[in-house]
């Protein structure tokens, strides 16, 4: 215990920590996919100016982007059971909220947080596509839905991918706060390891390295996707 940093301990801890990566990735990927669904719906509602729903999306964006992730997580973790409890009391229908795993709350919290950002990304991406593209689709007899799916969204993707990558990397890091609602992921695992070994710096260094590696991998993946979509852009002024 004389060295300031015990490398052999770091080495061991590294492998111990690997078992928590799947949980971190599960949280990040699940929340991202759900957030993309929310984002797509939200963006379409805003772009198409659908009354009432549009107001709801605006309120959601306001809250989703203004409330810190951790506060949002707590609100979901403590708030949802109470809402369900009241629901049970009023209607007599049992919701079994006591048995909902914290993991579900974590996913809901992260999804709500990320969804707000993704909504704006998709909205900007859709608006970046020439409105003439949709007119052309409609003029050859496509429905709005067909035109959106086959033409607009595919061109919007070119714009959206780098921004989605940004959000996703952020999300990977945001998953580190869910240990506060008892979900054990990478940082949660590290905290336990710290408590057992009293080797704080080494453990957190290892965690930092793992997050870094994860981010590199996903950055590469996104870059590849971006590159393969780039054929559309060749010759553009950008």
């Amino acid at each position, binding site marked *: 215990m004389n060295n300031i940093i015990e490398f052999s301990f770091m080495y061991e801890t590294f492998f111990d920590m690997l078992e928590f990566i799947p949980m971190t990735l599960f949280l990040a990927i699940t929340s991202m996919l759900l957030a993309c669904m929310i984002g797509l719906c939200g963006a379409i509602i805003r772009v198409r100016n659908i009354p009432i729903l549009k107001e709801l999306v605006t309120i959601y964006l306001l809250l989703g982007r203004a409330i810190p992730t951790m506060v949002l997580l707590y609100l979901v973790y403590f708030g949802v059971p109470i809402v369900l409890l009241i629901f049970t009391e009023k209607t007599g229908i049992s919701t079994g909220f006591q048995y909902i795993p914290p993991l579900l709350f974590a996913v809901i919290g992260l999804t709500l947080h990320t969804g707000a950002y993704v909504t704006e990304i998709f909205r900007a991406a859709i608006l970046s596509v020439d409105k003439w*593209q949709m*007119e*052309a689709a*409609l*003029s*050859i*007899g496509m429905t709005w839905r067909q035109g959106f799916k086959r033409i607009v969204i*595919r061109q919007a993707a070119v714009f959206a991918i780098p921004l989605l990558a940004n959000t996703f990397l952020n999300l990977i890091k945001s998953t580190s706060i869910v240990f506060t609602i008892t979900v054990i992921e990478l940082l949660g695992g590290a905290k336990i390891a710290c408590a057992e070994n009293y080797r704080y710096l080494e453990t957190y260094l290892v965690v930092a390295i793992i997050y870094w590696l994860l981010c590199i991998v996903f950055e590469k993946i996104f870059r590849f996707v971006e590159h393969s979509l780039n*054929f559309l852009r060749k010759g553009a002024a950008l």
Partner: protein
Amino acid sequence: MIEFKNIHKKFGSNEVLKGINCKIPTGSVTVILGPSGSGKTTLLRSVNFLEKADRGEIILDDLHIDVEKASKADIHNIRQRTAMVFQMYNLFKNKTALENITEGLTVVKEIQKKQAKEEALYFLEKVGLSHKAEAYPHQLSGGQQQRIGIARALALNPDVILFDEPTSALDPELVGEVLEVMKKVAQEVNSTLLVVTHEIGFAREVADNIIFMADGFIVEQGPPHELLNRPQENRTKQFLSRYISFIEYNI
């Protein structure tokens, strides 16, 4: 036959169409002329509801649409029976030239992919661009893009093809190739062609009928030799004087 009955359209307080009435016979080539701001493009776009007129009726053969009460099905129906060639070409940027044409065939007409491809190649050949089948729009010149725009419209075999100033965005030296294709289309295709253009020469040569619009009204209409050589209304004369001074003297 396409018929407009009392079509009105306002953009804010600006009344662009002030009651348009006219009939366009099936299979004819009709050119709409007029100064900018006269409502000709708006009229054209109201046919396929890219611009929804405020009131009036649009009749395409058996399809009667009261604009105010137009249902989604009506709009979809008339869009399936018409096609449009745009001023800015509006090719799908994420599709190759060939895919731009097959897109409507496979998605809208639900034709098998293989057959759609054959048809698309046939129409690419017609506009003289078979060798560009795999090119993306950004790899093509304006004139080439517009010819593909025309092929895309033709392939759908629509009752009506709407041309919205198809040569206005082109370099002067590319205008010729597009007009050439359009002439060929006018001669070979049975669809009704409704063309908004400033190309008086094209109108003179190809049109069966010319409609002259100004300030939201149809001022005058008739066959090209009459309307262009002996315009009856002052507004028409005034508009044509700019062109006639160039063209007439050359004859």
